[in-house]
């Protein structure tokens, strides 16, 4: 089923029911505390006797650590503890496993491998004294040649970064391939048109407003460690701490309180968390670590950094036959990529996009460089940002070559609705999709034909206006446990629902919001299924002692996995409620009908009991049916059978100042289809945020390095993120194509706009630059880079 309904940005706000009992535009339950400054973020926590931790970081990208002298720091009157790599090595804690099964130094022992790497830490009475003491530590380094350019990292005479790994003689990290090389070769051989392009997705950073931090509190009496931390995956973190530190899981409580944005930055375990734990273990006091912005930008999980060679093959009349690509992936000094174990390149395999191809092939090589670890972050859905950027740029290059309209070319090659579930040439099974109406709605909302006429008139006058299109298929909701795990932990999610005697309820989730509105929407999911108003349903998440096990929030997986669990656990409670209702109404359960919030006797609506009546009976005096226990609660662990595959059509209009080469995004139309919509208001907010990410990545943001490995984007002075002035009013619309395998037909959506918008913006800029013969220019399309492209000198951004 697909319904199409335009929802322009100029519609009246709060247009329908304020208190839906289920899905609908409901105002957020989170807001009252946030608008009053009553949120509870990690740095707000103050515990009796709490100490403060600061980390000493390497000024060099690659150097041997010859000595670390901490004597002056230890003599500082407010310092309680100074710890070096050598001290951690004695306890076996100097290295920790990463989410990719590599290892990463907690504190450097042998050498430093990126600028900003952790070398030592200080615990002091306040944050000022801790910083002071860092200045008193004297480290002697022997500089080594850094490896910065991923293109030369595998050259024979290049220094070996990871000499800690047994027998490692080069900077090779891993190889990966997907698709069928021979099939692709054959398709390319018989193509009329082949277009190739070198495309770089530069290194960027999620830069959440709140940096990473933690408060560790080890109680030496009962041996229990409590860790409040900025984590998107508290249960997975707890298990990994248990495996590393040797503390049993029931003696570790990880609490993820309110998180000031995550965007994938807060999935990995960082050395700072481990240092805070060590600090508390050594001092017996609570220890707070809160990094500053510079530390966040230079040392925590970056995103992207794929250097790609794309090739697309087609017939002269625009039938796309095949796509292939070679990728060089820069993983930094340690492979810390957060991705399911069997997917070292994430879900890049969906690079065939929304098109019905005959063949596809990808060959990837990942390498180590002297940069911070990361790669999977910033709403990438496990590398789908890169995949969608590649295919949507290549399709535009083909349209340019064929002289064909970019929408027309896409329409001709879409996977058709009757082909779903559709198995791609790289083995992904798309659940559902109806692409043409989504593209058509975007075209109508944009007034595409008028825009092209305007562009032609402007071009005749020498003005630079561009129109960019992208159409994407996402893959979110990892994932089926037979295929997907993080270090052996299957990617399923638990959910527990308990209805109290008076009919109020609490639902406990394993996922962890960082602003996506779970406290509101999960109450809505349960309300829709159980008829209890969402205001009466408390959503608990983020505390491993109070919530069921699960893998956390990233990859837009909350709705596909945990959302399914919430619906199914509510149905389990409803099934039990039905048995109790049958005894209350003295009829067979088969004679009962569910009327959202009550069971009534078929044909006699007056004979009914509400879910609240049933809850009281479940806890009260009086008999229950044979075999039915007291209470009204259930739990579930949901294992998804497939991912969900939302899609979207985006159209961007840019103007470029011919004198300064400054790009302005004048309009942006975004039509998203994420199946059943739980809360349209929240979806729109997610889309607005993601589109803004797209403007940042396409036009402003980049983590750059000089040849010595100095990070040139280590603060918000140089790492530019969009302000209110760089973004337009967004124009959003939607279509609805439910996921057939999801209990409520909902798909994930949070990352769609971040995935889909950069190619639309770049396609628009390249379109504007047509008079200069530009076929491709790499992000970030800053004025200087656009100016270079206008002079015929588009250069890769490394």
């Amino acid at each position, binding site marked *: 089923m697909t319904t199409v309904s335009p929802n322009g940005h100029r519609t009246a706000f709060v247009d329908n029911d304020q208190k839906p009992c289920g899905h609908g535009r409901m105002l957020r339950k989170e807001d009252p505390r946030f608008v009053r400054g009553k949120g509870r973020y990690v740095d707000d926590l103050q515990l009796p006797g709490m100490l403060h931790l600061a980390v000493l970081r390497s000024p060099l990208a690659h150097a041997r650590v010859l000595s670390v002298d901490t004597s002056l720091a230890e003599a500082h009157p407010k310092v309680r503890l100074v710890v070096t790599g050598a001290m951690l090595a004695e306890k076996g804690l100097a290295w920790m496993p990463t989410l990719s099964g590599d290892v990463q130094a907690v504190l450097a022992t042998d050498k430093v491998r990126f600028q900003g790497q952790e070398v030592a830490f200080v615990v002091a009475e306040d944050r000022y004294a801790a910083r002071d003491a860092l200045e008193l530590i004297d480290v002697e380094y022997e500089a080594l040649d850094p490896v910065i350019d991923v293109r030369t990292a595998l050259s024979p005479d290049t220094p070996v970064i990871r000499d800690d790994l047994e027998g490692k003689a080069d900077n090779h990290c891993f190889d990966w391939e997907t698709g069928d090389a021979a099939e692709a070769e054959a398709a390319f051989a018989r193509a009329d048109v082949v277009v190739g392009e070198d495309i770089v997705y530069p290194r960027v950073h999620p830069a959440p407003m709140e*940096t990473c931090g933690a408060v560790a509190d080890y109680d030496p009496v009962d041996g229990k460690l409590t860790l409040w931390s900025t984590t998107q995956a508290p249960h997975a973190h707890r298990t990994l701490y248990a495996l590393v530190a040797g503390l049993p899981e029931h003696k570790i409580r990880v609490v993820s309180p309110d998180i000031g944005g995550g965007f994938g930055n807060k999935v990995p375990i960082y050395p700072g968390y481990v240092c805070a734990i060590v600090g508390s273990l050594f001092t017996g006091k609570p220890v707070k670590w809160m990094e500053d912005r510079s530390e966040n930008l230079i040392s925590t999980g970056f995103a992207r950094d794929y250097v790609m060679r794309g090739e697309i093959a087609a017939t002269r009349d625009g039938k796309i036959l095949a796509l292939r690509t070679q990728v060089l992936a820069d993983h930094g000094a340690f492979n810390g990529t957060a991705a399911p174990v069997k997917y070292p390149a994430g879900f890049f395999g969906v690079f065939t996009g929304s098109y019905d191809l005959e063949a596809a092939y990808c060959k990837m090589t990942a390498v180590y460089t002297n940069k911070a670890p990361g790669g999977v972050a910033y709403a990438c859905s496990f590398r789908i940002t890169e995949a969608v950027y590649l295919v949507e740029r290549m399709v535009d290059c083909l349209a340019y070559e064929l002289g064909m309209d970019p929408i027309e070319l896409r329409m001709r090659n879409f996977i058709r609705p009757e082909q779903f579930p559709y198995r791609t040439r790289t083995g992904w099974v798309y659940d559902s999709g109806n692409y043409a109406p989504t593209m058509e709605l975007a075209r109508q909302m944009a007034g595409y034909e008028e825009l092209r006429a305007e562009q032609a008139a402007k071009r005749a006058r020498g003005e630079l206006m561009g129109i960019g299109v992208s159409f994407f298929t996402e893959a979110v909701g990892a994932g089926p446990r037979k295929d997907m795990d993080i270090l052996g932990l299957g990617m399923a999610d638990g959910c527990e629902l308990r209805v109290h005697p008076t009919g109020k309820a609490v639902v406990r989730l394993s996922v962890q919001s960082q*602003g996506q509105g779970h406290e509101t929407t999960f109450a809505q999911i349960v309300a829709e299924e159980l008829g209890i108003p969402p205001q009466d349903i408390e959503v608990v998440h983020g505390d491993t002692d109070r919530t069921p096990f699960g893998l956390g929030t990233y990859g837009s997986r909350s709705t596909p996995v945990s959302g399914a669990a919430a619906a199914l656990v509510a149905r389990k409670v409803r099934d039990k409620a039905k048995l109790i209702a049958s005894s209350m109404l003295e009829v067979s359960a088969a004679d009962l009908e569910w009327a959202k919030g009550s069971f009534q006797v078929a044909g006699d609506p007056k004979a009914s009991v509400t879910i609240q009546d049933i809850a009281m009976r479940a806890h009260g005096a009086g008999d229950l049916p044979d075999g039915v226990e007291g209470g009204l609660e259930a739990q579930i662990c949901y294992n998804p059978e497939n991912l969900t595959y939302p899609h979207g059509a985006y159209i961007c209009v840019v103007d470029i100042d011919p004198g300064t080469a400054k790009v302005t995004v004048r309009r942006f139309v975004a039509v998203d289809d994420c199946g059943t919509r739980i809360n349209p208001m929240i979806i729109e*907010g997610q889309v607005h945020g993601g589109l803004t990410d797209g403007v940042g990545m396409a036009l402003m943001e980049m983590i750059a390095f000089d040849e010595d490995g100095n990070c040139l984007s280590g603060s918000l002075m140089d790492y530019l993120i969009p*302000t*209110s002035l760089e973004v337009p009013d967004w124009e959003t619309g939607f279509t609805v194509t439910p996921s057939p395998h999801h209990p409520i037909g909902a798909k994930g959506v949070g990352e769609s706009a971040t995935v889909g918008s950069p190619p639309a913006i770049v396609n628009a800029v390249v379109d504007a630059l047509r008079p200069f013969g530009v076929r491709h220019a790499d992000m970030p399309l800053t004025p200087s880079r656009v100016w270079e492209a206008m002079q015929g000198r588009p250069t890769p951004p490394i």
Partner: protein
Amino acid sequence: MTRISVKVDGTNYQDEVEPRLLLIHYLRDRLGLTGTPVGCDTSNCGACTVDLDGASVKGCSVLAVQADGSEVTTVQGLTSNGEWTGLQQAFHERHALQCGYCTPGMLMAARDLLRDNPHPTSDEVRHALEGNLCRCTGYQNIVRAVLDASEQEVRT
């Protein structure tokens, strides 16, 4: 140590502080007023915006000793007797916040704007909030909320 006297959210405080102590850390760590967060170290993000004697300032770029003899209002001083201000209500109704981290500073900057310019245009709102970064909302709903609070029809 330097002695300071400062009124914050209606309460008078007298304290001994190091001259280098930033106002934001005085508010957060000494007074426990953690409603105003820190988002950067280069005065760009505006998450720490508070009102100092009638002007919005970035609390990370003012020393506590500079606030001696002054009156400071933080987001936690906006609500009296449980009543929200029109701006707080509008942020809620327009879904102008997600993670909530920039919200306190955003509210204070918007309050400053509306005091100087009670009926701003959409462009004027965007310019007034240029010093306040947000990673979640894409700004549009924030602009709408401020316009709503100014009791003005949305002008595009």
